[in-house]
């Protein structure tokens, strides 16, 4: 795989396109965000004003989701789904260091969402290492 050779900027552009194509494929998806497990936005097409706070909230929720999974006997959370008055917010694991969040409107087809999210996750996963700026300084 050539993914290890791409730069952070290229990975950012590519992951932005992947998120955009998810929104195009499912018109009832209003936004998507890729967050690091420690609460930083890695790629997003939400309002820029919401990116940072959303990434932190997703990281906390995802970590608590892992604890919920342990109640069920597993330590590996794969998906979390929040249904609210106006739609859904779905969180999916992207490897162990990142999570994908998809924001949808009310009548989205959940089966299609799951399928498209799975495609999006496998497209994003190889880009995640390049999106991190680890151990700077």
């Amino acid at each position, binding site marked *: 795989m050539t993914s290890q050779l791409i730069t952070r900027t290229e990975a950012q552009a590519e992951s932005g396109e992947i998120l955009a194509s998810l929104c195009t494929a499912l018109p009832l998806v209003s936004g998507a965000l890729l967050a690091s497990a*420690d*609460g930083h936005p890695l790629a997003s097409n939400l309002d820029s004003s919401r990116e940072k706070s959303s990434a932190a909230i997703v990281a*906390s929720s995802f*970590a608590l989701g892992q604890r919920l999974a342990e109640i069920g006997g597993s330590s590996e959370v794969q998906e979390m789904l929040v249904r609210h008055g106006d739609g859904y917010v779905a969180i999916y694991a992207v490897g162990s260091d990142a999570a994908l969040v998809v924001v949808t409107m009310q009548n989205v087809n959940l089966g299609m969402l799951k399928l498209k999210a799975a495609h999006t996750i496998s497209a994003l996963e190889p880009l995640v290492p390049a999106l991190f700026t680890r151990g*700077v300084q």
Partner: protein
Amino acid sequence: MNYDFKVVVAGPFASGKTTMITASSDDPLVGTEAPTSGDEAGVKALTTVGVEFGSLSYEEDGEAVELSLYGVPGQERFSFMWDIVSVGMDGFFLLVDASRPETWTNSKAIGEYFARLSRCPVVVGINRVDTDDPAAVSRVVDEIRHAVSMPGATYLTFDVMDRVSAQNALMELLLLMLEQELRDPILLEAS
């Protein structure tokens, strides 16, 4: 009479919150840690992103006291967790890292944030004081009392990694919480 107190442990990134709760808790800590990235990765490998939980119980003269310890993330981006976890807290434990004065204004900001959320008793626990000389220790405490001023708080030095030291620090907060309970006329009636 049984007491059950909720204690929130807060402080800047890498000040020792998880270590303190791990050291003092009777049961293994239930945590939510994630790998750090960016600048934070240069300081340590894992950071708390949600909430962590430990508990500690004492029994004396037939009285049982249970402390529930809640640790919150130190970074400002997780301040929404501070709002959530502070609901119903009986005592607040603020950590200050004596070895990194550049984090003291952050300690103060976190302390003030929680002081706005609750008027409960406060202990400021000063960690990583690298001297045993009493005069030097009291100089550091005075400096921090000034830099991280929390009205009405008790200031003490301790070692987050040492079980006895961490538990003693929590005992100071427990005493303040018990005093507060005894001052509360409604609770006096109930007992």
